[in-house]
């Protein structure tokens, strides 16, 4: 019994010291981690929202759209929305940030958190990757969701990562429909 108590006490002491050290380091790193997250989000928000003013985040009831930011023009009129969208990639869930005009036309988009393959799907993090979606989503040009809907040059750029491309296309398309259905009206 005494031996068991001694063993338990020693193990508990090791755990307590480890927890104390981790708490100390967490108190230093946690504010920096939160700051990094905010900066990444702010940068993506500004990049995808064109020249519009960005409003505060609002919750949505759409399953894959986790937040929306209303965009307004210089006169203060509602001009569109930027959405935070969850999409399915080759290696799991991806987080997209995409800006839209009121008719659902894509301003541009950025791929944020993802686990795609470096050198293949990960290439979608490059801002130039999203050029193929810009200006789509209106009545004239649907959002491309499959490789065969792209021009030959654009299709070459997604060779080897068509699942990533389709996931991003479907996510951006869902966002476009969501904004178009809102029709410029706040819910």
């Amino acid at each position: 019994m005494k031996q068991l108590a001694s063993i338990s006490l020693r193990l508990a002491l090791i755990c307590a010291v480890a927890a104390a050290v981790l708490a100390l380091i967490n108190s230093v790193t946690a504010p920096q981690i939160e700051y990094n997250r905010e900066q990444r989000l702010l940068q993506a928000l500004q990049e995808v929202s064109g020249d519009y003013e960005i409003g505060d985040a609002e919750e949505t009831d759409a399953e894959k759209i986790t937040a929306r930011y209303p965009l307004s023009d210089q006169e203060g009129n509602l001009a569109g929305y930027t959405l935070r969208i969850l999409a399915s990639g080759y290696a799991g869930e991806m987080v997209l940030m995409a800006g839209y005009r009121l008719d659902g036309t894509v301003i541009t988009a950025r791929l944020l958190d993802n686990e795609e393959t470096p050198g293949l799907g990960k290439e979608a993090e490059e801002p130039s990757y999203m050029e193929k979606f810009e200006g789509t989503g209106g009545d004239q040009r649907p959002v491309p969701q499959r490789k065969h809907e792209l021009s030959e040059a654009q299709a070459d750029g997604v060779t080897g990562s068509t699942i990533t491309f389709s996931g991003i296309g479907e996510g951006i398309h869902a966002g476009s429909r969501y904004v178009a259905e809102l029709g410029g009206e706040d819910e």
Partner: protein
Amino acid sequence: MNKEFTKGLVKDNPIFVQLLGLCPALGVSGLVVNALGMGAGVIFVMLGANIFVSLLKNFIPQKVRIPSYIVIIASFVTIVQMVMEAFAPELYNNLGVFVPLIVVNCAILGRAEAFASRNTLKDSVLDALGMGIGFTLGLTLIALVREILGAGTITLFAMGGFDGVIRIPILHLAPVRIFSLASGALLAIGLLLALFNWKSSAKRG
């Protein structure tokens, strides 16, 4: 040089000789920069674990030695994870799930159990440095083969005007994509292991 340090570099290399830590060797060897980052993380954790296991070898009860080692290793891994996420977020994002998985890297637990728990602090430090650097060298070698063949690039840390990516002429335009994929990792490790075995058997005559 001290044999406790040099043995881990080539003779008892964790990846190519002991075949330990193959999970990260397969998972994060797509880019050279990721291999170097993971290697630095493993060296830090292995060094911390070996130091504390060696110092506490008479305090840790035999019956709970493995849980104790795991607590020590997991603490160092969590430190690496928090510091990397705070101060090297891009590297942290690239390494993904493999940072917390350093906890179960058997090369680290293996050294704590097989060496640090039975040897002096000085020898344990040298062993951790040698094995950690050996692991990093092995991982970087696999990453070099995979990235050069699979993407035609060598990705290092960006500095000033240098974006961190060295592009290999011609190969960059038409790389052998399979080496970027998971199957390419198995292929590259298999070929390097065969080369390692061939060299060692040739040495033995």
